[in-house]
Structures are given as C-alpha cells and as structure tokens.
C-alpha cells in the first residue's frame, strides 16, 4: 500500500509541478532558516558550558548604589576578595581571581615578537575552570611568580609544533601594567571553541600583586574578576542573601554595596543587569531569532495546508473511490500525512544543501565559526524537525480531506463550507501579519542604527586614529606628541586612558563643598586624558579651560562634564576645590556632555583627569582627505620611537561602529528573515490566486460575456486577496508598535516612532501582494471566455 501511495504521489507531483514547486521552495527555505538558526542557537547555548563544574561555577559581582534606589552591577572585585572568600566562607570550595590585561601585551621569544591578550590568574584557576591543560600541572602551574602558562596556538607560533615549550622562556612587556620581565613556561593550555573568553597567556596572580601599588590592594579598588566553585548542593538564593553584605561591612567607602553570585555560564547569554538584577542579554536575540525562524517555517507549512485544501476537489475523487473500495479514514489520513512527510524530508534534503552553501556567509554575518557536522544529535534533530514539519503541514489537509463520505464526494456534492474558507483566509492573514511585523522590525532597526551612526555624540569621531602606547613610547609620549603635531595631515594629537567608546572606570566616595547626604554615593566615570584632549576630540568647552602641558601641575586639576556639575549642585564650579580621585583638586573646566558609552546608556557624571602614568592610547586627529600622508608619516615616526613593532592603529569611528556589532547583526539577519517570510508568503498567495482564477474560470467567462471589462475582472479577482492583506495590516501593526516600542526602550537615545514606519510597511506588503496576485488576475481576466464556456 505504501508503495502505491508513493507512486500516486509522485505521479500527481509530476502533473501539478507548480504546486509542488511552491511547497518545495517554501518548505526548503523555511527548514533552511530553522537549521541555520538551530546551529547558531545551539552554539550560543553551549558557550562556556564545557567547564566540568559548570553547575557550581559562579562569578562574584557587586551591586553598587549609583543613585538613590538605583544599583549598577560590576563584575570586578578587590583582590582582597579572593583570600576573604577562601578563608571565611565554607560554601566556597575553590576560588580564583583573574585580572584581565586591558591591552595586547608584547611577547618575545626565539627572535619572534607577537602581540597577544593575556590574563593574570591565581593558583586554582585550572581547578575552577576546565580549560584543558596539555602540559603542566594544574595544581602548580600558576604558583611561581616567574612562570607563565601559554595557549597552544601561542606555543606553536613561537616554537613550532614539534618542540615542547615547557621550561622555555618568553619575555613579556605590558605598557599599562609596566611589566617587563622574562617568564618561564610552566604549562600549555587550550581554549575550546565554545569559550567566550579568549586569551593567550596566563601569568600568576602573584605577579599582578607584585606590580600593584600597595595602596591599591584595598576593598575600594576593584580590578579583578573573582570566580568560585561552590560546594555541591549550595542553595544559591540563601547563599546570596547571606553574602550580600560581605564587602560593605569591611570598608566605609563601599557602604551599601551588595555582593552577588551569578552562574558563570550565564554571563554570555544573560550578561545584562538592571538595577542589580539579571535581565537577559544575548538570550533575547537567541529567543527572538528562534521564534522568527519558526514563524518562517510555519508560513511555509501554511502554504502547504492552503494549497492542499484549496485543490481539494482534485483529491476528493480519490478519497471517495478509495473509501468506496474499502479504505477506512485512518488509512487515508496516513496516506496524506506520509505525503506531506515525504515532501518535508525532500525539502530537508534541499535545505541541507542550502545550509551547506550559505554557512560561510551566515558565519560572516553572525561572526561565528559554525560547522555543519553530521553528528547523531544533529541528525536526530533534523529528522525530528522534518517529521514535525511534515505532520503539522499535513495535519489539516489530512483531517479535512478524509472527512467526507464516499457518496457525497463521488456525487460532487461538496460545497466549501464557511468555516473552511475562514480557516484558509485566517491562515493567509497570519502569514501576512508575520511578514508585515518583520518589515516594520527591519525598518525600525535600520532607522535606529542609522540614528546611532549619525547622532551628534558631543565629540567628533571622524578622522581620529587611536593606537596603543608601546615600550619605546612609554617615557617619551610628550616628545612623540610634539613631533606628531608637526607632521603633514595631522591636526592635533593627545593621549588618553582606555578608549572613547567605553569609559569603564568608575568610582564613588568623593566629596565636594555643599554635598548632600543623597549625593554622597554618586558614582563618577573618569578617565585620564592628555593636554588638548578636548580640542582634539572636538568636545565643546562650556566654561573654564582645558589641560595645558604643565605636569605635574595637572595632577591637582579636574575637568567635569555638565551632568557632573548638575548632580553635584555646584553653582560656580570653576575654581572650586573638590576631593575626587585624590584630595584638593581644582575644577578648571566644565565640558558639554558627550557620549562615553553606547547609546543604550544615559550620559553619566564624568571627570577628566590628567596623569600620564595611567594613559594607554594615543589619539591623533587627522585632516580629512589627507589620511594617507598622515598615516605614512605617523608610522615612520612611530617606528623611530618603537623600532621593530608594527604600527597597529584603529579609527575611532570604526571602534564606535563596533559598539553596535550585535545590532548590525540583528539588522542584517532580520532583513534576510523578513525577505524570506515575504517570499514564502507571496509564493503561497501566488498559488492560491492561481487556483482561485482557475476555479472561477467559468464565472469570469460569464461575467465577460455579460459585458464586464478586463480591468473590472482584474480588480474583482485581486480584491479578494487584497482584503486579506488589509486585514493583516490591521492585525500586525498594533503588535509591531508594541514590539518596536519595547525594543527601543532599551536605548537611552532613540528615534521616535511615527506613523510613517507603519504606513510604509503596510504599503510594502500591499505592493508586493498586488504584484503577486495581479499578474494572475490579469492573466485570468484576459482569457477568451469562449474556451472556458465550451468546456462545460
């Protein structure tokens, strides 16, 4: 029987190629979307879960009051946290502190120089985390202050595959930490692909402590990440309650600070904190795209259902005959379901090919290295997805077509019932609503991204080069800057700590004249900058002056932004002496607010300080149009100061773009998904329109014979479907509005939604649907009525 059904199916397919094609294209694209998203999602979900004690691996965070009733969550901790946890908290089985070097460090061995990111970690690092240690002992690899553990890639780059790097030495220099020493290799580790953190070498935490100013080893100085392995069966909720006041009882500066333990593998997907609580993060996009992919697939399933039931008359004869001959309903349902499942598996085959073709492209968009490996788990998932797709899309036709009695069917007494028409129309409306929703999403995301690119940030991000200060430059920055300013194409040059796009440093516990109890705990962002920083960046000075090249005098001065002056309540800020990052600083200037983070965040109170020891980057403003000359001459100058090092520079506007990389990804992906959804919906509409034109052939002919014009008939035929599209618009737009408002609410600076976005999306849907249906309608309306009537 199965063979029979397959034969029947294949022969029907040959006869009705267009229906088959529409279903195949739809289901294949839908399945391909689902497969790509599945690969992406499973990769995202697997991030950082390779650690053996994943379930017990927690990170220590701090919730710090930044304004009355508002908490900010920080992941850095004092280096004192490590020993305190180890000694005082029985629930902590193991703990490790990790300091992340903020810049690339210079590594030198075997006459090779390599820049690589590194961390400094305490003894139990390899016991808390499960990064595979290829050589070395996980108990002792990080105990000796003069040792280093390096990644396999780094070992290969320096020494080749053949040679065992254990015991060899590497010279490591780090400008910011002022490290310049030779270390002996005590281990080689590997970073699995699904690790969110990438680093190439690990120095012992003892080294970190060695280079610290003893004053900075204090409870208020937070620079290290602390990770713990909790004892099995620790109740995390109770534990967090118990530990909340762990830090605040130790130091007056950190009053109100609460300690929070969060699962380490959650960081990657749920890394956002709002008022001290985890509020999602990448997981939002993971969920969003899973849902969108399923929607695209369901649109394809709907095509299958609609086309199958619309063409039911063709199948009903078969149902009637089979029933009369002795088939029961179950066997017919099984027949129809096996047809849809067969199509679904056929589509799966096509989808797999499509995925293989698109994977490199998809990897570029998502910034991943996904591979499509034929593993049992993947095969099982594919099988289940295809089976489910087949069953879902076949369910309605199977139940619908087999319910009629043989007598009725064979006598042709079947009238399409109202309910059934409603169901079919409802499905079309669902398809188009989803498509319209996606069109609005694409529009809103695009406009918001565009807005973020072009918004006035309060500084000029164009034509600004940034590069790290390397060894040769460290002591001669001022000389370098003086010479750089003379170079052709250079407008101005200065230096700063960190980057413009992220002023990560924050501190509290400052005091100033007229401070109130409420404003006592305000946290200020701060960065050290060089003379003429304000001019170089094009930041507007509201009052006072900028830093001049007059150190060490600058170290007792401070420049604030408008927001800072406002929250501090200073009437005449210039000349006021305050205590901030050092006692007795005189306010010499106030700058207009400028954005120092991504536009998700409001502008925070901020201070610009000037102390050369803390700086890490040089900032050079160059003339538009003279980039080439400027870069060439800067490189030459750079090489004079740091011979043998590559001139590794970045442009500020690129750095700024990078803040929104995930939004860019979402934008690109949503564009493709929306296109997919529209395409599949239109294919379905096309099929339905063709069918409707065919079904109404006689009616059209009679109307034409009675004097209706071609255009009237066209309008009549298209109108049937355009009504559905209009209803879809009405259904979709309220949801679209809610979703758009919701998405935009996370940005502190955002576009205002206006009717144009929604009207535009509606128009796009209408135009696309009109083109799809119109061609069929015109075609049908232009047919010679004689032929149709003669057939009767």
């Amino acid at each position, binding site marked *: 029987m199965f063979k*029979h059904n397959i034969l029947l199916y294949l*022969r029907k397919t040959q006869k009705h190629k267009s229906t088959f094609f529409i279903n195949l294209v739809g289901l294949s694209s839908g399945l391909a979307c689902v497969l790509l998203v599945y690969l992406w999602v499973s990769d995202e979900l697997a991030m950082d879960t390779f650690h053996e004690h994943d379930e017990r691996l927690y990170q220590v965070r701090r919730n710090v009051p930044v304004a009355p009733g508002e908490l900010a969550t920080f992941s850095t901790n004092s280096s004192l946290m490590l020993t305190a946890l180890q000694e005082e908290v029985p629930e902590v089985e193991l703990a490790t502190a990790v300091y992340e070097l903020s810049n690339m460090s210079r590594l030198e061995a075997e006459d090779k120089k390599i820049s690589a990111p590194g961390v400094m970690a305490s003894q139990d690092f390899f016991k808390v985390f499960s990064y595979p240690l290829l050589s070395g002992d996980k108990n002792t690899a990080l105990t000796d202050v003069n040792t280093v553990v390096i990644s396999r890639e780094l070992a290969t780059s320096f020494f080749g595959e053949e040679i065992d790097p254990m015991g060899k030495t590497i010279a490591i220099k780090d400008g910011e930490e002022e490290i310049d020493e030779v270390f002996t290799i005590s281990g080689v580790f590997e970073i699995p692909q699904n690790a969110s953190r990438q680093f190439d070498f690990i120095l012992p935490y003892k080294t970190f402590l060695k280079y610290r100013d003893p004053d900075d080893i204090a409870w208020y100085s937070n620079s290290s990440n602390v990770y713990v392995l909790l004892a099995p069966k620790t109740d995390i909720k109770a534990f967090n309650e118990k530990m909340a006041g762990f830090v605040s009882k130790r130091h007056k500066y950190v009053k109100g600070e609460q300690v929070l333990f969060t699962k380490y593998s959650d960081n990657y997907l749920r890394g956002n904190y709002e008022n001290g609580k985890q509020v999602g993060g990448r997981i939002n996009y993971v969920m969003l795209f899973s849902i969108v992919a399923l929607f695209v697939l369901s649109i394809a399933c709907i095509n299958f259902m609609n086309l199958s039931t619309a063409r039911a008359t063709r199948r009903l*004869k078969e149902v009637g*005959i*089979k*029933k*009369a001959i*002795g088939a*029961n309903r179950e066997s017919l349902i099984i027949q129809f379901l096996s047809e849809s499942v067969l199509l679904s598996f056929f589509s799966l085959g096509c989808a797999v090919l499509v995925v293989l073709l698109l994977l490199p492209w998809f990897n570029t968009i998502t910034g991943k290295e996904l591979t499509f490996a034929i593993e049992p788990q993947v095969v099982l998932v594919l099988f289940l997805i295809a089976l489910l797709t087949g069953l879902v899309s076949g369910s309605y036709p199977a139940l619908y077509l087999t319910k009629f009695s043989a007598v009725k069917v064979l006598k042709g007494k079947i009238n399409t019932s109202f309910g059934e028409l409603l169901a079919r129309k409802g499905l079309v409306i669902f398809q188009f609503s989803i498509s319209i929703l996606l069109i609005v999403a694409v529009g809103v995301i695009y406009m918001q991204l565009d807005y973020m690119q072009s918004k006035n940030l309060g500084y000029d991000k164009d034509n600004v080069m940034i590069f790290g200060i390397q060894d040769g430059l460290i002591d001669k920055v001022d000389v370098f800057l003086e010479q750089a300013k003379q170079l052709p194409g250079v407008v101005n040059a200065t230096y700063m700590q960190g980057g413009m796009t992220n002023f990560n440093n924050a501190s509290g516990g400052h005091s100033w004249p007229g401070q109130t109890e409420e404003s006592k705990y305000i946290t200020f962002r701060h960065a050290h900058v060089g003379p003429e920083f304000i001019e170089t960046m094009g930041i507007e000075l509201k009052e006072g002056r900028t830093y001049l090249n007059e150190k060490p005098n600058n170290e007792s001065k401070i420049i604030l932004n408008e927001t800072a002056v406002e929250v501090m309540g200073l009437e005449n800020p210039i000349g006021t002496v305050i205590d901030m990052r050092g006692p007795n600083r005189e306010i010499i200037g106030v700058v207009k607010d400028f954005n120092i983070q991504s536009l998700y965040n409001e502008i925070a109170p901020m201070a610009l300080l000037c102390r050369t020891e803390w700086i890490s980057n040089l900032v050079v403003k160059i003339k538009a149009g003279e980039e080439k000359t400027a870069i060439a001459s800067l490189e030459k100058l750079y090489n004079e100061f740091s011979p043998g090092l590559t001139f590794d520079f970045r442009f500020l506007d690129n750095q700024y773009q990078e803040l929104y990389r995930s939004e860019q990804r979402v934008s690109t992906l949503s564009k493709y998904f929306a296109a997919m959804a529209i395409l599949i919906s239109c294919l379905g509409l096309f099929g339905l329109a063709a069918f409707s034109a065919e079904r109404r052939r006689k009616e059209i002919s009679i109307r034409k014979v009675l004097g209706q014009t071609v255009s009237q008939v066209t309008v009549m035929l298209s109108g049937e479907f355009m009504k559905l599209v209009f209803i879809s618009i009405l259904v979709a737009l309220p949801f679209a509005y809610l979703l758009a408002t919701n998405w935009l609410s996370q940005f502190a600076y955002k576009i205002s939604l206006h009717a144009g976005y929604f009207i535009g999306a509606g128009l796009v849907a209408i135009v696309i649907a009109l083109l799809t249906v119109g061609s069929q309608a015109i075609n049908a309306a232009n047919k010679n009525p004689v032929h149709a009537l003669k057939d009767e």
Partner: protein
Amino acid sequence: MLLELKNIFKWVNSGSQRIFLLKDINLSVEEGEFISVMGPSGSGKSTLLNVIGMLDQFDEGEYYFFDESVHKLKERHRSNLYKEYIGFVFQAYHLLDDLTVYENLEMPLLYKKYKGAERKAMVADMLDRFNIVGKKDLFPAQLSGGQQQLVGVARALISKPKLILADEPTGNLNSKQGEEIMDLFKQLNEEGVTIIQVTHSEKNAAYGSRIINLLDGRMVK
C-alpha cells in the same frame, strides 16, 4: 438469504419539512439473484443502492446482511462487512487517473492485507479473465469508456464479493459497449454472484431476474 431490508426510511430535513428519500422499503435478496432497480430520476434508486452498499446511512428500519444486523453495527464493523462482501461499479467508472490499470485493480486488495504474491496472482487472474493483459500498464485516460468500465467491473470483482452493486454501469457507454458489460454481468450472475443494478433502460433491466420499481422513495409493485 443474502440481505433483508425491513421498513427502511431515509429522510432529510429541509426547514420545517421532512423530505423522504426512502419510504418504508421492504426487500429481501437471495443469493444468486440479479435485481434491476428502476424508476424516474430522483425516485431514490441510487440512495437505495448506497444504503444496501452501506455507503449511506438510513434513519429508521432494520437491515440484515447475512443475518448481521447492519443497523446495530459500529462504523468499523460495517466497513469490514462491505469490504468483505460487496463490490461497486459506478456510472462514471471512478478509476484513479494517476494509477495504471494494474494498480487500479490491485488497490482494493491493499486494503485487505493480502500478501504481495497473492495480489499479483489475483490481479493477473483478473486481467486474464477480462482479456486486458495488454492494457495493464495504461492509464485510464488512455482507454475507451467501455474498457474503463471493464476495469471498473474487474476492480469490483477482484476481491471475490458475494454482491455487486452497479449504479447505471452502462450510462456513459455506447450501446455496443453497454451490451458487452451487461453480458458480462449475466455471466457473472450465472457463476453465482448476486447483482443489484440501477438502470434507466428497459433492455438492461431485462437481463435481471427481478425488477424493483421505485417512485418518490417507495417501492411500487
């Protein structure tokens, strides 16, 4: 006795009116009979045939088939019963267009769980008997009306039914083709198959051993 209908009523409600399709039908059919049902259009001939064939329900009355009370049977049992004992021949042949002659003949057997080899033998036997071996790989559209109906009859016979129900089997055929089909029925009847046919033609009705006349759902003597 093959089957017996006792006081069968069938009606539809149209508004407040009840329209009777079958009215107090009493009929018993012995094995080996050849019955022709006649009557004007709309007199309930096909309905009666469908009721006998268990494709259609009735609203009142009793129906015994081989002493089984059909009116008390569940759908599944009823379907088993007619699968086993009844074959249909339709006016419009009702062959499946996408299957070949061979596959069309094989289809009823598929719903009865015959083994592959058995099916093959039965289909071959039927092709042989109706002299259509040469046409076994053709599709219905490639056959003449008479040939299609021949396949239709063969399909009805293949599962060796006790009773063949034929709804105007010659209605779509020319007179020569019609005659051939009627001859075939007569021959089958002589071999022991019970036949009930609906027909408009006096000539075809004459092939039967008994004629039942229907008018407005009633049997008239």
